[in-house]
C-alpha cells in the first residue's frame, strides 16, 4: 500500500516537473519575433479606429502596403505623421496602401491625434497590442513595415521615417514593393 503511494507521489512530482519544463519550452518557442525581410507579414484583422467594421491585411493582397505602428503618446510619431500623410497622398494613385495601427492607446486620444494631424489613410486600433507586439514584435513606436504585393516584408524601419537614416530607405522600399 505504502509502496504504491510512494510510486504515485513520485509520478506526481515527475508530472509537475515535466509540466513546468513543457511550459518553459512553450514560452521559448512562442516568443514573438519581428518578421524578417523576405518573410510573409503575419495576417491580422483589426477594428477601424473610431469607425465601424474591421480591416484585414489579406484584403490588400496584390497591392504594396505601408504598415505604420504608432500611438498618440509617442513624440516621434507626431513628426512622422505629416510625412506619412504627404506620401500617402502622392502614392495612393499608384495603388500603394497606407495602414496605420494605433497601439496601446486610448481611443479618444488616438482619434484626437488623427484629427489634429489631418491623417486620412485607414487607421486601425490594437489596444491590447496582440498584433503589434505579438505578431510584429514591435517594442517601441513608431515602426514601419513595407510589404510587397505578395505580402512579403520588403523593409522594416525601427524608428520614425523622418529619421535621416530611414528617409531614403523608406522611399526605395516603396519602389521595390511596387515593382
Amino acid at each position, binding site marked *: 500500500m505504502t509502496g504504491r503511494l510512494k510510486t504515485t507521489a513520485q509520478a506526481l512530482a515527475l508530472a509537475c516537473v515535466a509540466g513546468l519544463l513543457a511550459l518553459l519550452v512553450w514560452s521559448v518557442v512562442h516568443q514573438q519575433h519581428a518578421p524578417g525581410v523576405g518573410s510573409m507579414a503575419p495576417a491580422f484583422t483589426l477594428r477601424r479606429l473610431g469607425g465601424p467594421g474591421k480591416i484585414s491585411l489579406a484584403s490588400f493582397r496584390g497591392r504594396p502596403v505601408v504598415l505604420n505602428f504608432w500611438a498618440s*503618446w509617442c513624440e516621434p510619431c507626431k513628426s512622422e505623421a505629416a510625412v506619412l500623410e504627404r506620401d500617402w497622398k502622392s502614392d495612393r494613385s499608384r495603388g500603394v496602401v497606407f495602414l496605420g495601427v494605433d497601439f496601446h492607446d486610448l481611443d479618444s486620444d488616438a482619434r484626437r491625434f488623427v484629427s489634429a494631424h489631418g491623417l486620412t489613410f485607414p487607421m486601425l486600433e490594437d*489596444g*491590447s497590442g496582440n498584433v503589434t507586439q505579438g505578431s510584429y514584435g514591435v517594442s517601441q513606436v513608431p515602426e514601419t513595415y513595407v510589404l510587397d504585393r505578395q505580402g512579403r516584408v520588403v523593409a522594416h524601419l525601427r524608428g520614425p521615417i523622418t529619421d535621416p537614416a530611414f528617409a531614403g530607405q523608406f522611399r526605395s522600399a516603396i519602389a521595390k514593393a511596387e515593382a
Partner: protein
Amino acid sequence: MLRFAAVLVAALAFAAPAAACPHPRTSLNYLEGQVMCPTCHTTLDMSDSPAAQQIEGFISKRIAMCWTAQHIESALVANYGQAILAAPSHRGFDLLAWWLPILGVLAGAVILAFGVWRWSRRKEPDEPDEPDEPTGSGLDEETERRLDDLLARYD
C-alpha cells in the same frame, strides 16, 4: 475673520465635488497599483513612460467625474484588454490564478503532514530494540566473559 472666510471658501470648494459623488471617491494612488503600464509591463506607480502618463491622465479625469474604480478598470479593459489589470479578474478561467496557489499550498501541507506521519511511524518499531543492544552483540557467553576479563586488565 478674513482668514476664517478664506478657509470656509476653500473647504466648500473641495467639499463640493466630493459631496456630488454618491459613493466614496476612488484615488489615483489606489488605481496606479491596480493598472499596468502596457508598454513597460509594470504597474503605473512604477512607471514614468508616456503611455503610463496617458493612462494616469485618463484615470484622474474619470475620478473627477466620479467614476468608481471598477468602472474605470472596465473602461481600461475595454480599451487595452484584460492584460491592463495587474491582478486577474475573479471570473472564469482567471479564477485559476487565484485558486491554484492556495491549492498548491494546501497540497504541500498535506504532503508534508503525511511525510512527517510516515517518518514518526517508522521510528516507533526501532525503539524497543535499543535495550537489547548489550546482549545483542552476537558473541557467546564464554567469549564475552573473556573479553570482559581482558578489558578489566586495562582499567
